[in-house]
Protein backbone atom coordinates (compact mmCIF):
# COMPACT_ATOMS: atom_id res chain seq x y z
CA UNK A 1 0.00 0.00 0.00
CA UNK A 2 1.24 3.47 -0.77
CA UNK A 3 0.15 7.04 -0.01
CA UNK A 4 -2.95 5.99 1.94
CA UNK A 5 -3.73 8.71 4.45
CA UNK A 6 -7.00 9.22 6.28
CA UNK A 7 -8.44 10.24 9.62
CA UNK A 8 -11.57 8.48 10.81
CA UNK A 9 -13.38 10.43 13.54
CA UNK A 10 -15.43 8.72 16.28
CA UNK A 11 -19.09 7.95 15.46
CA UNK A 12 -18.28 7.43 11.79
CA UNK A 13 -18.22 4.70 9.17
CA UNK A 14 -15.60 4.42 6.43
CA UNK A 15 -16.45 2.45 3.33
CA UNK A 16 -13.43 0.97 1.57
CA UNK A 17 -14.00 -0.04 -2.03
CA UNK A 18 -11.86 -1.16 -4.92
CA UNK A 19 -11.37 -4.03 -7.34
CA UNK A 20 -9.79 -7.34 -6.34
CA UNK A 21 -6.20 -7.04 -5.08
CA UNK A 22 -6.57 -3.31 -4.54
CA UNK A 23 -5.45 -3.56 -0.90
CA UNK A 24 -8.75 -3.44 1.00
CA UNK A 25 -8.04 -6.50 3.15
CA UNK A 26 -4.41 -5.45 3.61
CA UNK A 27 -5.58 -2.08 4.95
CA UNK A 28 -7.93 -3.74 7.42
CA UNK A 29 -5.26 -6.21 8.54
CA UNK A 30 -2.85 -3.32 9.08
CA UNK A 31 -5.42 -1.55 11.25
CA UNK A 32 -6.09 -4.79 13.15
CA UNK A 33 -2.30 -5.18 13.77
CA UNK A 34 -2.28 -8.51 11.92
CA UNK A 35 0.30 -6.92 9.61
CA UNK A 36 3.04 -4.44 10.40
CA UNK A 37 3.63 -1.53 8.02
CA UNK A 38 7.08 -1.61 6.44
CA UNK A 39 6.97 2.15 6.20
CA UNK A 40 4.67 4.87 7.48
CA UNK A 41 2.36 4.20 10.38
CA UNK A 42 -0.90 4.90 12.03
CA UNK A 43 -2.75 5.06 15.28
CA UNK A 44 -6.09 3.89 16.63
CA UNK A 45 -7.66 6.16 19.24
CA UNK A 46 -4.17 7.51 20.03
CA UNK A 47 -2.44 4.12 20.21
CA UNK A 48 0.36 3.48 17.74
CA UNK A 49 -0.26 0.46 15.50
CA UNK A 50 3.26 -0.90 15.96
CA UNK A 51 4.56 0.29 19.34
CA UNK A 52 1.25 -0.09 21.15
CA UNK A 53 -0.25 -3.00 19.23
CA UNK A 54 -1.76 -4.70 22.27
CA UNK A 55 -3.66 -1.56 23.28
CA UNK A 56 -4.96 -1.37 19.70
CA UNK A 57 -6.11 -5.00 19.92
CA UNK A 58 -8.08 -4.21 23.08
CA UNK A 59 -10.03 -1.54 21.17
CA UNK A 60 -10.34 -3.34 17.85
CA UNK A 61 -12.31 -6.27 16.50
CA UNK A 62 -11.69 -7.70 13.04
CA UNK A 63 -14.11 -9.85 11.10
CA UNK A 64 -12.25 -11.40 8.19
CA UNK A 65 -13.49 -13.52 5.35
CA UNK A 66 -13.03 -16.69 7.40
CA UNK A 67 -15.00 -17.16 10.62
CA UNK A 68 -11.93 -18.12 12.65
CA UNK A 69 -14.06 -20.66 14.51
CA UNK A 70 -13.25 -24.24 15.44
CA UNK A 71 -15.25 -26.83 13.49
CA UNK A 72 -15.31 -29.41 16.28
CA UNK A 73 -16.55 -27.00 18.93
CA UNK A 74 -20.18 -25.96 19.22
CA UNK A 75 -21.35 -22.46 18.40
CA UNK A 76 -21.78 -21.78 22.13
CA UNK A 77 -18.28 -23.07 22.95
CA UNK A 78 -16.72 -20.95 20.19
CA UNK A 79 -18.44 -17.85 21.48
CA UNK A 80 -17.48 -18.62 25.08
CA UNK A 81 -13.87 -19.10 23.95
CA UNK A 82 -13.88 -15.72 22.18
CA UNK A 83 -15.32 -14.11 25.32
CA UNK A 84 -12.65 -15.69 27.54
CA UNK A 85 -9.88 -14.59 25.19
CA UNK A 86 -11.31 -11.07 25.24
CA UNK A 87 -11.06 -11.08 29.03
CA UNK A 88 -14.85 -11.34 29.39
CA UNK A 89 -15.36 -14.91 30.62
CA UNK A 90 -18.66 -13.89 32.23
CA UNK A 91 -20.12 -12.44 29.03
CA UNK A 92 -23.77 -13.48 28.58
CA UNK A 93 -23.15 -15.94 25.74
CA UNK A 94 -26.83 -16.94 25.54
CA UNK A 95 -27.84 -13.30 25.04
CA UNK A 96 -25.32 -12.85 22.25
CA UNK A 97 -26.44 -16.06 20.58
CA UNK A 98 -29.99 -14.76 20.66
CA UNK A 99 -28.96 -11.37 19.37
CA UNK A 100 -27.34 -12.82 16.23
CA UNK A 101 -29.99 -15.49 15.69
CA UNK A 102 -27.82 -18.50 16.55
CA UNK A 103 -29.82 -19.85 19.51
CA UNK A 104 -31.41 -22.71 17.50
CA UNK A 105 -27.94 -24.01 16.51
CA UNK A 106 -26.13 -23.06 19.73
CA UNK A 107 -25.17 -26.64 20.56
CA UNK A 108 -24.36 -27.75 17.02
CA UNK A 109 -20.74 -28.11 15.98
CA UNK A 110 -19.59 -25.32 13.70
CA UNK A 111 -18.71 -27.79 10.93
CA UNK A 112 -22.41 -28.36 10.17
CA UNK A 113 -23.26 -24.67 9.88
CA UNK A 114 -23.92 -22.89 6.59
CA UNK A 115 -21.55 -20.13 5.54
CA UNK A 116 -24.15 -17.53 6.54
CA UNK A 117 -24.44 -18.94 10.06
CA UNK A 118 -20.65 -19.07 10.36
CA UNK A 119 -20.58 -15.42 9.34
CA UNK A 120 -23.10 -14.61 12.09
CA UNK A 121 -20.85 -16.39 14.58
CA UNK A 122 -17.87 -14.34 13.43
CA UNK A 123 -19.92 -11.16 13.85
CA UNK A 124 -20.97 -12.20 17.36
CA UNK A 125 -17.37 -12.98 18.34
CA UNK A 126 -16.40 -9.46 17.32
CA UNK A 127 -19.48 -7.73 18.68
CA UNK A 128 -19.24 -9.11 22.21
CA UNK A 129 -15.90 -7.33 22.54
CA UNK A 130 -17.76 -4.00 22.30
CA UNK A 131 -14.95 -2.69 20.07
CA UNK A 132 -14.26 0.98 19.51
CA UNK A 133 -12.90 0.21 16.07
CA UNK A 134 -14.81 -2.43 14.16
CA UNK A 135 -13.17 -3.77 10.99
CA UNK A 136 -15.43 -5.70 8.65
CA UNK A 137 -13.99 -7.41 5.58
CA UNK A 138 -16.69 -8.40 3.08
CA UNK A 139 -19.22 -8.80 5.92
CA UNK A 140 -22.19 -9.67 3.67
CA UNK A 141 -20.83 -12.92 2.24
CA UNK A 142 -23.48 -15.63 2.65
CA UNK A 143 -25.78 -13.49 4.79
CA UNK A 144 -29.54 -13.38 4.26
CA UNK A 145 -31.62 -10.21 4.68
CA UNK A 146 -31.73 -10.57 8.49
CA UNK A 147 -27.98 -11.10 8.53
CA UNK A 148 -27.42 -7.93 6.50
CA UNK A 149 -29.64 -6.06 8.97
CA UNK A 150 -27.48 -7.50 11.75
CA UNK A 151 -24.39 -5.91 10.21
CA UNK A 152 -26.23 -2.58 10.06
CA UNK A 153 -27.29 -2.96 13.72
CA UNK A 154 -23.72 -3.82 14.74
CA UNK A 155 -22.39 -0.81 12.84
CA UNK A 156 -24.93 1.51 14.43
CA UNK A 157 -24.25 0.12 17.90
CA UNK A 158 -20.51 0.70 17.49
CA UNK A 159 -20.85 4.27 16.25
CA UNK A 160 -23.46 5.09 18.91
CA UNK A 161 -20.92 4.06 21.59
CA UNK A 162 -18.43 6.51 20.12
CA UNK A 163 -16.61 3.99 18.01
CA UNK A 164 -15.75 3.85 14.33
CA UNK A 165 -16.34 1.23 11.68
CA UNK A 166 -14.35 0.37 8.56
CA UNK A 167 -16.19 -1.77 6.03
CA UNK A 168 -14.39 -3.17 3.01
CA UNK A 169 -16.79 -4.57 0.48
CA UNK A 170 -17.68 -4.98 -3.15
CA UNK A 171 -21.33 -4.65 -2.18
CA UNK A 172 -20.99 -0.94 -1.47
CA UNK A 173 -24.64 -0.22 -2.30
CA UNK A 174 -25.61 -1.90 0.98
CA UNK A 175 -23.51 0.55 3.04
CA UNK A 176 -24.28 3.75 1.18
CA UNK A 177 -26.80 4.92 3.77
CA UNK A 178 -24.54 4.18 6.74
CA UNK A 179 -21.15 5.29 5.45
CA UNK A 180 -19.82 8.76 6.21
CA UNK A 181 -16.74 8.57 4.03
CA UNK A 182 -15.32 6.52 1.20
CA UNK A 183 -11.80 5.38 0.48
CA UNK A 184 -11.42 3.86 -2.97
CA UNK A 185 -8.27 1.89 -3.63
CA UNK A 186 -6.63 0.57 -6.76
CA UNK A 187 -3.36 -1.37 -6.72
CA UNK A 188 -2.74 -0.33 -3.12
CA UNK A 189 -3.14 3.38 -3.78
CA UNK A 190 -6.08 5.70 -3.11
CA UNK A 191 -8.06 6.82 -6.15
CA UNK A 192 -10.81 8.57 -4.21
CA UNK A 193 -11.10 9.75 -0.61
CA UNK A 194 -13.91 11.86 0.71
CA UNK A 195 -17.32 12.16 2.30
CA UNK A 196 -20.03 10.01 0.81
CA UNK A 197 -22.31 13.03 0.50
CA UNK A 198 -20.02 14.55 -2.13
CA UNK A 199 -20.09 11.49 -4.37
CA UNK A 200 -22.75 10.33 -6.78
CA UNK A 201 -23.59 6.69 -7.29
CA UNK A 202 -21.77 6.88 -10.62
CA UNK A 203 -18.66 8.27 -8.90
CA UNK A 204 -18.77 5.43 -6.39
CA UNK A 205 -19.27 2.79 -9.04
CA UNK A 206 -16.27 4.15 -10.91
CA UNK A 207 -14.18 4.32 -7.72
CA UNK A 208 -15.17 0.78 -6.74
CA UNK A 209 -13.94 -0.34 -10.13
CA UNK A 210 -10.60 1.33 -9.50
CA UNK A 211 -11.24 4.30 -11.84
CA UNK A 212 -10.89 7.87 -10.69
Amino acid at each position, binding site marked *: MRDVTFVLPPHSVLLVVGPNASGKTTLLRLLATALRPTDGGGSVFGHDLVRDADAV*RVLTAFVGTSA*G*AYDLLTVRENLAFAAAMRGRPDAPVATWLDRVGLTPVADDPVRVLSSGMKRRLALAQAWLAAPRLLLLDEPYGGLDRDGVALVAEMTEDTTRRGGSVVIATHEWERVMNEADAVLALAAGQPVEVGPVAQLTAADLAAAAGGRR
Partner: protein
Amino acid sequence: MNGFLRAAAVARKDLRVEWRGRQTITATGMVALLMILLLGFVVGSEPARAAAILWVAMGFAAVLGIPRVTQGEVDQQALEILLLYPGSREHLFWGKCAALTVMLSALLVALLVLLGVLFGVDVWDHGGALVGVGVLGIVGLSVIGTLLAALVLHVRGRELLMPLLLLPLALPVVLGCVRLTEAILTGTAAGLWPAVLVSFDVVSVLVCPILFEVVMDEV
Protein backbone atom coordinates in the same frame (compact mmCIF):
# COMPACT_ATOMS: atom_id res chain seq x y z
CA MET B 1 -6.62 -9.16 31.82
CA ASN B 2 -6.18 -12.46 33.61
CA GLY B 3 -3.47 -14.43 31.85
CA PHE B 4 -4.25 -17.61 33.74
CA LEU B 5 -7.86 -17.57 32.53
CA ARG B 6 -6.77 -16.98 28.94
CA ALA B 7 -4.24 -19.82 29.10
CA ALA B 8 -6.89 -22.08 30.67
CA ALA B 9 -9.33 -21.17 27.88
CA VAL B 10 -6.77 -22.11 25.21
CA ALA B 11 -5.92 -25.39 26.96
CA ARG B 12 -9.59 -26.29 27.42
CA LYS B 13 -10.33 -25.48 23.79
CA ASP B 14 -7.39 -27.56 22.50
CA LEU B 15 -8.33 -30.52 24.69
CA ARG B 16 -11.99 -30.34 23.61
CA VAL B 17 -10.99 -30.26 19.95
CA GLU B 18 -8.63 -33.19 20.54
CA TRP B 19 -11.23 -35.17 22.49
CA ARG B 20 -13.75 -34.81 19.66
CA GLY B 21 -11.28 -35.33 16.80
CA ARG B 22 -8.82 -37.68 18.52
CA GLN B 23 -6.27 -36.94 15.79
CA THR B 24 -3.16 -36.31 17.87
CA ILE B 25 -3.69 -39.00 20.45
CA THR B 26 -4.52 -41.61 17.80
CA ALA B 27 -1.45 -40.79 15.71
CA THR B 28 0.95 -40.57 18.65
CA GLY B 29 -0.56 -43.65 20.30
CA MET B 30 -0.19 -45.74 17.16
CA VAL B 31 3.42 -44.67 16.62
CA ALA B 32 4.32 -45.33 20.25
CA LEU B 33 2.59 -48.71 20.23
CA LEU B 34 4.30 -49.80 17.02
CA MET B 35 7.70 -48.66 18.30
CA ILE B 36 7.28 -50.55 21.56
CA LEU B 37 6.21 -53.72 19.79
CA LEU B 38 8.92 -53.43 17.14
CA LEU B 39 11.74 -52.62 19.57
CA GLY B 40 10.45 -55.30 21.93
CA PHE B 41 10.81 -57.89 19.18
CA VAL B 42 14.20 -56.60 18.00
CA VAL B 43 16.04 -56.06 21.28
CA GLY B 44 14.02 -58.38 23.49
CA SER B 45 11.43 -57.76 26.14
CA GLU B 46 13.64 -57.96 29.23
CA PRO B 47 12.67 -55.41 31.92
CA ALA B 48 16.16 -53.88 31.69
CA ARG B 49 15.43 -52.63 28.17
CA ALA B 50 12.02 -51.21 29.03
CA ALA B 51 13.29 -47.75 30.02
CA ALA B 52 15.02 -47.05 26.72
CA ILE B 53 12.14 -48.45 24.68
CA LEU B 54 9.58 -46.40 26.63
CA TRP B 55 11.29 -43.05 26.15
CA VAL B 56 12.38 -43.62 22.56
CA ALA B 57 8.72 -44.40 21.79
CA MET B 58 7.64 -41.27 23.70
CA GLY B 59 10.19 -39.15 21.83
CA PHE B 60 9.04 -40.27 18.39
CA ALA B 61 5.38 -40.01 19.34
CA ALA B 62 6.02 -36.46 20.52
CA VAL B 63 7.69 -35.59 17.20
CA LEU B 64 4.53 -36.66 15.42
CA GLY B 65 2.00 -35.17 17.82
CA ILE B 66 3.49 -31.85 18.86
CA PRO B 67 3.14 -29.96 15.54
CA ARG B 68 -0.55 -30.90 15.29
CA VAL B 69 -1.48 -28.85 18.35
CA THR B 70 -0.54 -25.57 16.66
CA GLN B 71 -1.08 -26.68 13.07
CA GLY B 72 -4.76 -27.12 13.89
CA GLU B 73 -5.08 -23.35 14.23
CA VAL B 74 -3.83 -22.90 10.66
CA ASP B 75 -6.03 -25.69 9.29
CA GLN B 76 -9.08 -24.06 10.91
CA GLN B 77 -8.04 -20.61 9.63
CA ALA B 78 -8.25 -19.49 13.26
CA LEU B 79 -4.64 -18.48 13.87
CA GLU B 80 -5.04 -14.85 12.82
CA ILE B 81 -8.08 -14.29 15.04
CA LEU B 82 -6.28 -16.06 17.92
CA LEU B 83 -3.28 -13.75 17.55
CA LEU B 84 -5.52 -10.67 17.39
CA TYR B 85 -7.01 -11.26 20.82
CA PRO B 86 -5.52 -8.73 23.23
CA GLY B 87 -3.02 -9.89 25.84
CA SER B 88 0.39 -11.48 25.88
CA ARG B 89 1.14 -14.32 23.46
CA GLU B 90 2.76 -16.01 26.46
CA HIS B 91 -0.76 -16.95 27.56
CA LEU B 92 -1.25 -18.80 24.28
CA PHE B 93 2.05 -20.57 24.87
CA TRP B 94 1.06 -21.78 28.33
CA GLY B 95 -2.39 -22.84 27.15
CA LYS B 96 -1.02 -24.88 24.27
CA CYS B 97 1.77 -26.27 26.45
CA ALA B 98 -0.74 -27.35 29.12
CA ALA B 99 -2.91 -29.12 26.54
CA LEU B 100 0.13 -30.90 25.14
CA THR B 101 1.23 -31.90 28.64
CA VAL B 102 -2.16 -33.50 29.31
CA MET B 103 -2.08 -35.40 25.99
CA LEU B 104 1.49 -36.66 26.48
CA SER B 105 0.68 -37.61 30.10
CA ALA B 106 -2.26 -39.72 28.93
CA LEU B 107 0.02 -41.38 26.39
CA LEU B 108 2.71 -42.06 29.00
CA VAL B 109 0.23 -43.67 31.38
CA ALA B 110 -1.00 -45.96 28.58
CA LEU B 111 2.57 -46.87 27.62
CA LEU B 112 3.53 -47.62 31.24
CA VAL B 113 0.61 -50.02 31.52
CA LEU B 114 1.67 -51.61 28.22
CA LEU B 115 5.23 -52.01 29.48
CA GLY B 116 3.90 -53.61 32.64
CA VAL B 117 2.05 -56.18 30.55
CA LEU B 118 4.55 -56.83 27.74
CA PHE B 119 7.90 -56.42 29.53
CA GLY B 120 6.96 -57.70 32.94
CA VAL B 121 7.97 -54.37 34.48
CA ASP B 122 6.68 -53.83 37.99
CA VAL B 123 5.04 -50.50 37.23
CA TRP B 124 2.82 -50.47 40.30
CA ASP B 125 5.62 -50.78 42.89
CA HIS B 126 7.57 -47.93 41.29
CA GLY B 127 4.49 -45.90 40.35
CA GLY B 128 5.36 -42.75 42.33
CA ALA B 129 8.96 -42.53 41.10
CA LEU B 130 7.96 -43.26 37.50
CA VAL B 131 5.31 -40.53 37.61
CA GLY B 132 7.97 -38.12 38.91
CA VAL B 133 10.28 -38.93 35.99
CA GLY B 134 7.31 -38.72 33.63
CA VAL B 135 6.44 -35.22 34.84
CA LEU B 136 10.01 -34.01 34.35
CA GLY B 137 10.21 -35.56 30.89
CA ILE B 138 6.82 -34.44 29.67
CA VAL B 139 7.29 -30.87 30.88
CA GLY B 140 10.57 -30.68 28.98
CA LEU B 141 9.10 -32.18 25.80
CA SER B 142 5.96 -30.02 25.96
CA VAL B 143 7.75 -26.72 26.56
CA ILE B 144 10.35 -27.24 23.83
CA GLY B 145 7.73 -28.80 21.55
CA THR B 146 5.27 -25.90 21.84
CA LEU B 147 7.97 -23.45 20.82
CA LEU B 148 9.17 -25.56 17.89
CA ALA B 149 5.61 -26.18 16.69
CA ALA B 150 5.17 -22.41 16.40
CA LEU B 151 8.56 -22.05 14.72
CA VAL B 152 7.80 -24.52 11.90
CA LEU B 153 4.17 -23.42 11.49
CA HIS B 154 4.52 -21.94 8.02
CA VAL B 155 7.59 -23.86 6.91
CA ARG B 156 7.23 -26.17 3.94
CA GLY B 157 8.47 -29.64 4.84
CA ARG B 158 7.83 -29.06 8.54
CA GLU B 159 7.27 -32.80 8.99
CA LEU B 160 10.95 -33.24 8.17
CA LEU B 161 12.13 -30.18 10.04
CA MET B 162 10.32 -31.00 13.28
CA PRO B 163 12.30 -34.19 14.11
CA LEU B 164 15.52 -32.51 12.98
CA LEU B 165 14.93 -29.73 15.50
CA LEU B 166 13.14 -31.54 18.31
CA LEU B 167 15.21 -34.69 18.65
CA PRO B 168 18.58 -32.98 19.20
CA LEU B 169 17.06 -30.34 21.49
CA ALA B 170 15.11 -32.89 23.49
CA LEU B 171 18.04 -35.30 23.72
CA PRO B 172 18.88 -34.33 27.32
CA VAL B 173 15.23 -35.00 28.27
CA VAL B 174 15.02 -38.39 26.56
CA LEU B 175 18.46 -39.47 27.77
CA GLY B 176 17.78 -38.25 31.30
CA CYS B 177 14.43 -40.02 31.44
CA VAL B 178 15.93 -43.26 30.13
CA ARG B 179 18.69 -43.21 32.78
CA LEU B 180 16.32 -42.27 35.58
CA THR B 181 13.70 -44.85 34.62
CA GLU B 182 16.45 -47.46 34.36
CA ALA B 183 17.73 -46.52 37.81
CA ILE B 184 14.22 -46.78 39.27
CA LEU B 185 13.48 -50.15 37.70
CA THR B 186 16.87 -51.71 38.54
CA GLY B 187 17.31 -50.04 41.92
CA THR B 188 20.65 -48.43 40.99
CA ALA B 189 21.89 -44.89 41.65
CA ALA B 190 20.53 -42.14 39.39
CA GLY B 191 23.70 -40.01 39.53
CA LEU B 192 23.35 -36.45 38.25
CA TRP B 193 20.45 -37.14 35.93
CA PRO B 194 17.73 -35.68 38.16
CA ALA B 195 19.70 -32.43 38.31
CA VAL B 196 20.19 -32.46 34.53
CA LEU B 197 16.47 -32.96 33.91
CA VAL B 198 15.39 -30.31 36.42
CA SER B 199 17.93 -27.81 35.05
CA PHE B 200 16.77 -28.45 31.48
CA ASP B 201 13.13 -27.96 32.46
CA VAL B 202 13.84 -24.76 34.40
CA VAL B 203 15.83 -23.19 31.55
CA SER B 204 13.20 -24.25 28.99
CA VAL B 205 10.33 -22.90 31.08
CA LEU B 206 12.12 -19.55 31.44
CA VAL B 207 13.31 -19.15 27.84
CA CYS B 208 10.71 -20.80 25.58
CA PRO B 209 7.70 -18.52 26.37
CA ILE B 210 9.80 -15.45 25.55
CA LEU B 211 10.98 -16.96 22.27
CA PHE B 212 7.39 -18.00 21.48
CA GLU B 213 6.31 -14.35 21.64
CA VAL B 214 9.07 -13.39 19.22
CA VAL B 215 8.17 -16.25 16.86
CA MET B 216 4.46 -15.41 16.93
CA ASP B 217 5.18 -11.76 16.14
CA GLU B 218 6.71 -12.93 12.86
CA VAL B 219 3.92 -15.38 11.94
